């Protein structure tokens, strides 16, 4: 089943979906395994697994540090594939890869798609690959039936959103605000207008990320978006309270 269908069938039962984010190898794959178990058992609908990169330009301090530490721990792209294969095998929710384009480019675009498709990865989020730069990437995504998740930003014009939506599959990732990951977002009038523009530009489900931290944030998104993305918040939680704190946190979000 394609990513969009998977999400839509889940949306029949829930008024908003939850996507979470982990950085592979941070603090270790063993902890990642436990965190994912707790996330899935507590009703997460989709998980983006970030393959660490040495130059994570779009990430804020929390995820940046997680990337660096994961690499310092010796996390290799091969480890990420093996771990992802294990997760996709074990759980039925869709798993995505989030990473920067160089990881795919260096691996070899087609080899990377082939391998990801084989292990059951449903989509890729690549923040530094706008569609203008991703002609071969988008063709391969189509060929291997892996959804290229495109990103809307508050700075995107209506025209640009339409253009992005044409290339996007699965869902659209709406960045809640200017800036990098991990800082609190304000959900004021401007934000509601922005989400209306997003909705008008595409029929794909809308995920909203960057700074979503609490039950209140998620409540505020109901009816306006289809999926809330929790990123840096759970990484900080694991750092402060350990993997076992993730389950209760996720359960408390809905």
């Amino acid at each position, binding site marked *: 089943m394609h990513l969009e269908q998977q999400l839509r069938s889940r949306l029949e039962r829930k008024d908003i979906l939850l996507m979470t984010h982990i950085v592979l190898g941070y603090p270790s794959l063993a902890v990642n395994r436990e965190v994912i178990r707790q996330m899935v058992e507590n009703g997460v609908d989709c998980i983006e697994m970030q393959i660490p990169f040495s130059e994570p330009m*779009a990430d804020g301090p929390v995820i940046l*540090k997680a990337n660096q530490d994961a690499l310092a721990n010796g996390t290799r792209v091969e480890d990420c594939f093996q771990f992802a294969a294990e997760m996709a095998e074990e759980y039925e929710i869709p798993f995505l890869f989030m990473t920067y384009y*160089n990881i795919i480019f260096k691996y070899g675009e087609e080899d990377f798609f082939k391998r990801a498709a084989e292990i059951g990865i449903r989509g890729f989020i690549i923040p530094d690959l706008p569609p203008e730069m991703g002609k071969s990437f988008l063709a391969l995504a189509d060929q291997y039936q892996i959804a290229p998740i495109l990103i809307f*930003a508050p700075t995107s014009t209506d025209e640009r959103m339409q253009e992005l939506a044409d290339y996007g599959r699965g869902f659209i990732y709406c960045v809640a605000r200017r*800036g990098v990951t991990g800082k609190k977002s304000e959900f004021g009038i401007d934000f509601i207008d922005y989400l209306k523009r997003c909705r008008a530009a595409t029929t794909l489900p809308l995920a909203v990320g960057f700074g979503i931290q609490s039950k209140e944030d998620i409540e505020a998104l109901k009816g306006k978006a289809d999926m809330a993305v929790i990123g840096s918040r759970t990484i900080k939680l694991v750092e402060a309270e350990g993997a076992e704190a993730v389950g209760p946190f996720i359960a408390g979000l809905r």
Partner: protein
Amino acid sequence: MNQDKNGFFGKWGGAYIPEVLYQTFQELKEEYARCRRDPAFWEEYLSLMSTYSCRPTPLTHAENLSRHFGGAQIYIKREDLNHTGAHKANNVMGQGLLVKRMGKKRVIAETGAGQHGMATATMAAKFGLKCTIYMGEEDVLRQRPNVFWMEKMGATVVPVKDGSRTLKDAINEAFRDWVTNVDETHYVFGTACGPSPFPEMVSWFQSIIGIEAADQIMKYHGRMPKKVYACVGGGSNAMGIFKRFLDEKEVELVGVEAGGHGADSGLHAIRLSSPDASPGVAQGYKTMFLQDDDGQMKQTHSVAAGLDYVGVSPILTALCESDQVRFESATDDEVMQALDLTMKQEGIIPALESSHAFAGAFKEVGTLSPDDAIIINQSGRGDKDIFTIAHAFGDPSWKKFIIDRGIEYSK
């Protein structure tokens, strides 16, 4: 060499940017295109550079060095005499005029050696803009005097503690600032790298170096030089002097990269003249990067902070591929010797970065005829590197001075 509509030079370059910056890049590209079309813009630029800075900078005939090697006549293009002491001001003042046209109120920049940060802080002071400079923590330590001056000119200097704490990390952090404050802020990219249109735009502002040098060498020497040498970090001074000579088929262009402890040591910043680099995409553009098999960037090393960088201008990568520019490297030791010789023979102090171009030229100049000429681009002055240079020479009287001053301050 001009970019195609997607910002590529051959297969190199492009604009691999997060969506939040898309619109601002559209505006930047449009404003840049308007400036390129408008002859009044270049006139304004020349006027600014000849009144606020010292353009045209001289081309000095290094008679003693020429005699010493007994080969071609050595001419030195004196970017060290540009305001703020390096070629960096050419690009920064050009982008400053662009910022004024765009109506933005704040500029940010990355800096390695500190020269680009200095130039940006200077421009911001002159044009009344707010200014934040990102500088790797390691570079803050090795280039303390530049930090002092940037702060004195009103800039905020932010030490970057992530990654290798050098130039590439400062670039990442500047991008993070830009995506956060995109509406009011322009990122004054310091070299001919990064996403399109920066490689071409920075090269355009820097092309003033080669335009002047070509006129000057015709005046002094009567014909084109045999070879032109420039050091290559990101590649802006090299693109600056090379651009004018690209169509002069008899002129050989030589880029000299940072050999660090040697090409086999793993401690260097040789992207184009060693097999250690491979094609990659980072910091918004595609070029040859020093990276591992997974695509993670490696640590680089050079005695010169300004050359200590994992990537290189996509234009230079394209020119390397088409054999229009030859690339060599010089080790830290060779660079210190070239610097020593140049000071003693000519009374000129090249920056450690520029000294790579001198070292590269010195290896070859003796084989040319005294009737020929070469040009070395002295991209900056070395006296600002006094702490690094004195340390590299292990100068005992300097050490004593620092120790005594330390004791005085700790009282």
